[in-house]
């Protein structure tokens, strides 16, 4: 279940050891943090949450290079007084901090920057790992965010929520976080906070799926809508969970569609290898369950080769493709541990009758007339009686075109009709057109248009923005008053 994240975490931990050894990069890391802080300030001033998202995108690379020393100095230089006392105790204090640098930007600190610093400390605590204090910090940070209630927090708050759930998961008590998450979800929806909404929804789904409460997950999906403005990574996650729930409910075509979209929308392989590997595992199984054989090229991709082959997915696919029951049973017993770990085990158990069907289809293509006894021997079935029922069922489900002659005990395949007589080509053609049109429409939607005739309007836009931000400020000053000044 947690495989995807754990893999990513481990990948990140390795380079972290190295960076601890040489001290020089400390200054560059601090510089980077400071630069990010000023970016966040700009984001707040211009009310462009896009800039904050850009800062958050550097979080993963920054995370590898964080150390107590870096954080201490960064907090000294950037944090407000209140936060200094709050964050300091979490970091090991044995290092000498240059206190002359301390009082540089005291007055101008925005609460957003404080939250950003808390987030960095949170990451450091998770990596240490010091989970109990990480949880404590996550809860205080969330409370602080709730208390201040500003829309400029949203992207940061979403990250904190994510790690809040992640800590619970690492502690093995994810079920306890459910009430909190549900409350957070309600607040996020009411405030139209798309970032938090998306993240919390995903956390909840993950929580339900890890508890195997597919019923509840399904109800959650039915009752909630995924916010449209949320970023691609969250959408990819959401689609992945959706695909898994649908697969359990035997709605394979929906599951297939969702997983495919999840894979397409996921970040590239070197950023999120774990997610892609896991999504592909389910994708392969669902494709098999639909009666299709996954393309060979999937198994050849460098990124997936190891995990799919070692996990036994290649072996299972081969067994289904050949239609050999004993091969299937072998692969299943050999790799059952890995299937249970990936929680694909029960799905794969359902594949058994697909194996029989492909076998049967091959027989019906090869022979125009074959005794039931021979089918029985070829497919290694237990009795001729069963073979008759199985053939009849396959005929009903349209897997084979054949009739049975009961008195003489043979199966007779019908001449395959011309596929172009049917609607099939038209349906496929329609599907492809639909796909192209969706792609076109999506890309139109995703485009950002520069303001019309840039130079003229830029000044005007800037002015408008200033007016807007002044207005916001006035409202805020009137309503809340800035606490830290």
């Amino acid at each position, binding site marked *: 279940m947690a495989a995807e994240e754990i893999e990513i975490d481990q990948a990140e931990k390795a380079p972290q050891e190295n960076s601890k050894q040489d001290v020089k990069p400390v200054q560059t890391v601090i510089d980077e943090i400071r630069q990010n802080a000023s970016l966040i300030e700009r984001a707040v001033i211009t009310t462009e949450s896009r800039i904050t998202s850009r800062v958050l995108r550097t979080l993963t690379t920054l995370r590898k290079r964080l150390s107590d020393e870096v954080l201490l100095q960064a907090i000294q230089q950037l944090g407000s007084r209140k936060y200094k006392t709050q964050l300091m105790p979490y970091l090991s204090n044995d290092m000498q901090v240059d206190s002359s640098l301390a009082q540089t930007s005291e007055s101008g600190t925005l609460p957003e920057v404080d939250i950003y610093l808390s987030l960095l400390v949170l990451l450091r605590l998770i990596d240490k790992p010091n989970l109990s204090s990480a949880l404590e910090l996550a809860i205080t940070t969330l409370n602080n965010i709730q208390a201040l209630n500003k829309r400029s927090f949203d992207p940061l708050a979403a990250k904190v929520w994510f790690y809040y759930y992640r800590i619970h998961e690492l502690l093995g008590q994810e079920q306890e976080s459910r009430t909190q998450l549900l409350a957070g979800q309600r607040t996020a929806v009411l405030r139209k906070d798309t970032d938090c909404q998306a993240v919390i929804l995903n956390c909840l789904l993950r929580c339900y799926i890890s508890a195997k409460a597919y*019923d509840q997950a*399904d109800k959650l999906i039915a009752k909630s809508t995924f916010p449209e403005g949320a970023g691609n990574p969250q959408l990819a996650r959401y689609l992945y969970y959706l695909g898994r729930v649908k697969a359990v409910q035997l709605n394979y075509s929906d599951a297939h569609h969702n997983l495919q979209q999840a894979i397409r929308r996921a970040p590239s392989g070197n950023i999120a290898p774990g997610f892609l590997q896991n999504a592909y595992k389910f994708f392969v199984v669902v494709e098999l369950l639909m009666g299709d054989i996954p393309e060979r090229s999937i198994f050849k991709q460098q990124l997936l080769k190891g995990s799919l082959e070692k996990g036994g997915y290649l072996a299972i696919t081969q067994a289904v493709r050949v239609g050999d029951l004993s091969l299937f049973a072998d692969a299943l017993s050999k790799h059952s541990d890995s299937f249970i770990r990936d929680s694909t085990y029960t799905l794969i158990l359902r594949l058994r*009758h697909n194996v029989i069907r492909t076998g049967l289809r091959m027989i019906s293509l090869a022979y125009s007339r074959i005794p039931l006894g021979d089918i029985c021997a070829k497919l290694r079935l237990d009795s001729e009686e069963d073979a008759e*029922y199985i053939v009849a069922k396959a005929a009903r489900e349209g897997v084979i075109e054949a*009739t049975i002659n*009961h008195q003489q005990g043979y199966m007779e395949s019908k001449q395959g009709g011309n596929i172009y007589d049917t609607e099939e080509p038209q349906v496929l053609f329609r599907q492809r057109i639909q796909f192209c*049109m969706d792609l076109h429409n999506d890309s139109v939607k995703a485009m950002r248009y520069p303001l019309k005739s840039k130079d003229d309007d830029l000044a005007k836009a800037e002015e408008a923005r200033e007016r807007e931000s002044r207005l916001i400020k006035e409202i805020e000053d009137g309503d809340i008053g800035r606490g830290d000044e």
Partner: protein
Amino acid sequence: MSKLFEIKQRIEKGERVVEGLNEAKLLMSQSNLLIPSTRSDMVDLQVSRDILEVGALHSITSQDLKSFERYINLLNPFWSLTNDSTNQPKIIALQLLIYLTQNRISDFHTLLESIPIHLLSNFHIQTPIKLERWIMEGSYSKVWDSKPEIELAGHWIWLAFLETIRNEIASCEEKAYDSLPINDAATLLFFNSPAQLTQFATSRGWTISPSTQHVIFKDLNSITGIEKQKFSLPSHNMISHSLNYAKELETIV
């Protein structure tokens, strides 16, 4: 809570079960036990769980499916809070079996996924799992052979189950055979006498030719079959799709 315990002992012996259950449910709702939480006392939880389990089993014997499902919904939180009870696999297996009888395969699998791994190998739960696999494969004779195991759950469940299976087989036969001798059709559908088959055949609209003693499916095939599809043009679909394409093109250009 000693009162609950008394009721439990009484109804487990099978005395005045309905009365006892009603009384117990009243007591439980008064002491907030119908919606259990981690704060509740473990002994209380176990006693109430046992009572509800008896209730679930009782509604099976009295053939009341709705109340059975209600009990299951009540029991679910108890099972996740207390350690395993002896009746739990039995009741889950019954629920699975009922899903199979009603052909609710998707619910069947959703429930199956939620069963903890260590319970999957339980004898009671293995039965419906095996049955489902055989049904999906089409190994109906194996299903027939496991009659005694299903009858353990209750004779009426077996009858309902047989009914579902028969309809499945019948729809397969309609496709796979042109015609069948009456006696063979009867054995395939697990009927004891041709007379029962004749009745069944009329209910499904099969023709029986009296001269050759055959059940004939061919007419059915030709009416519902491929030929009919081939000659009707899906004009409505085609027009609506073309219009849609035109609209999309318009927006692009």
